[in-house]
């Protein structure tokens, strides 16, 4: 049995990637399944997805703890969680990054394909949805499924959901990534430990499903936790504000789903980039194009 674990952020398409990989394996006459695990968070929050491929019917439904293949759709996750935990010594990895495999430290030294899936996705899809690009790199580094089956699976799943044209450009993204991926050994120096974990036994769980603000084993709990969880780090594009053009209609301020646009006394606005996820809604609703979305996050 071959086991795959995907790490991504909500909205990048990790779940569809896992499903598509499973479908590609089924196209080749094998058994496969895929399933997600995510919390109650929103677009941009860390998610996982799992896939298994085997010649026999797969009876296990547990999560994947010792993957043969690790797929990282968002490079920033490597710094916040031990994504390569349990990765087999002879396993493989795929990482969405501008860097070469040798510049990536996953914590386990394995054969690794790196590809700038963000750039490919923005070129083909005009959106930072990197799942199909990453699948091209998966086909490149493993002989799990052929690039042909992968393309067929993309056509099936994306075609059915989004139409033929969408299927075509997604296949284009996969092909480009298959070509552009660079393969080499990544570094294995990073310690693979969970930095912050609060796992009290049943006697130590606070009574009443109620938490005061505070710190438990390094984890912020209770009200105010968002102060530490700077969701602006998920941003892949950043609003650029032209105050001269602004007519102070406040539509951006009103529609920002994060509430991170602050209203000044004179009804001009400013962004709290600690929490701006770069969704671009402010830019869309601006009637005078005073807000441009610029590629890249900024910290």
């Amino acid at each position, binding site marked *: 049995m071959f086991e795959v674990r995907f790490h991504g952020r909500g909205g990048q398409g990790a779940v569809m990637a896992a499903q598509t990989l499973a479908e590609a394996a089924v196209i080749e006459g094998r058994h496969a399944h895929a399933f997600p695990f995510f*919390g*109650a968070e929103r677009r941009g929050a860390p998610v996982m997805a799992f896939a298994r491929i085997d010649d026999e019917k797969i009876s296990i439904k547990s999560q994947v703890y010792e993957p043969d293949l690790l797929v990282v759709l968002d490079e920033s996750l490597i710094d916040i969680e031990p994504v390569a935990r349990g990765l087999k010594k002879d396993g493989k990895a795929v990482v969405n990054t501008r860097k070469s495999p040798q510049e990536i430290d996953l914590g386990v030294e394995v054969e690794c394909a790196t590809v700038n899936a963000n750039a490919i996705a923005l070129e083909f899809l005009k959106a930072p949805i990197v799942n199909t690009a990453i699948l091209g790199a998966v086909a490149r580094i493993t002989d799990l499924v052929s690039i042909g089956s992968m393309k067929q699976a993309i056509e099936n799943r994306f075609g059915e959901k989004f139409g033929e044209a969408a299927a075509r450009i997604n296949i284009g993204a996969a092909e480009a990534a298959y070509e552009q991926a660079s393969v080499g050994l990544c570094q294995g120096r990073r310690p693979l430990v969970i930095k912050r974990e609060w*796992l*009290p*036994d*049943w*006697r130590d*769980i606070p*009574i*009443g*499903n*109620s*938490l*005061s*603000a505070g710190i438990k084993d390094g984890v912020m709990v*209770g*009200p*105010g936790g968002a102060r530490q969880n700077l969701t602006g780090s998920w941003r892949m594009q950043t609003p650029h504000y032209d105050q001269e053009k602004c007519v102070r209609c406040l539509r951006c301020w009103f529609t920002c789903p994060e509430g991170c646009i602050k209203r000044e006394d004179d009804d001009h606005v400013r962004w709290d980039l600690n929490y701006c996820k770069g969704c671009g809604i402010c830019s869309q609703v601006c009637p005078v194009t005073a807000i441009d979305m610029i590629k890249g996050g900024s910290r």
Partner: protein
Amino acid sequence: MKVRVISADHAVAYAAKIARTEVIPSFPITPQTLIVEQLAEFISNGELDADFIPADSEHSVMSIAIGASAGGVRVFTATSSQGLALMHEMLYCVPQNRLPIVMANVNRSLGAASGIWVEYNDSMAERDSGWLQLYVEDNQEALDATLMAFRLAEDRRVLLPVMICLDGFILSHTVEKVELPEQEEMDNFLPKYDPLNILDPADPKVINPIIPPEYAMEMRYQLDRAIEHSREVIVEVEKEFAKAFGRSYGGLIDTYRMEDAKFAMLTLGTATGLARRTVDEMRAEGKKAGLIKLRFMRPFPFKELCEATKDLKSLGVFDRSVSFNGGGPVHTEVAASLCNVPVTVTGHIAGIGGRDITPRHMRDMYDLVEKATKGEDVRKVTWHGLRGDME
């Protein structure tokens, strides 16, 4: 102490009054309405200083109760049947939040086959919610159980909601002699409510966040243990109550003429009184009949039942509701808890939808249970008073 001839609904309302309840969210539903009406009257004539909050549904009633209780005040409410079902979602919040809300559920059948008369299918459907749940036999017990419920619920070792279940109409609308304790006596028995968690703007808390798999299991086990530990507090509160008011009810179960009994019925609610009479009748005939009265459905008296039935040959279990194709819910739980006791357990369903349970029905139950002591074949579950032969 004064003696009045009042309904169980009135008795329960009186108990909530002398418990100095502070918030009463309410929605009327027969046969519970007399309780909240009586409480509204106590407030309007100045006998009770409480906020009476008429809500737009029972779902809102329980939501208000949760908010008020989390705000640190003593909360009482009452409901029945469809009202309890509409609360279902919010009921589950209360035990996990460890809020000591006290509620009377005046048992009424849950439709379809809608009716306003007694059946236990409303409260039995909530036995997995984490509420402590008890059933009462008469109006005095309805009052006394409500008084004890506040003390039990608010005990720091418990901190759980309590649901007092009483038979619709048979208790709720029946007047009988009830001894009413004085306010001062209750004040001595029930300390001021000292909440553990209070929603306070000066000390912000988050209550009921989404709980990932890493924590939910420990929280559930913690709640399971809290319900387990409430057993000893129930016994303790009973003792304190007996000391203060001179009446006691036996704790989780009560027994009647069980000393040398060979066969017995286990009953709950008002059928218990009828069973006592039948036991006397059979004893007069020289038959060794006994009775176990189930008071608490949660916590369930596993150990007490094993002890009480260890010398029995045959036990019949009365149910006033059906777990379809599974007999009655009390029957299945009793049978499960007695799986290592060599006693024949049979189920006896009666009084469905408020069908009157007559002395004849109860005698038929006892006769079947006695028959089983002789090794004769008795149905696993018998419906008493059913028209047409059972399949």
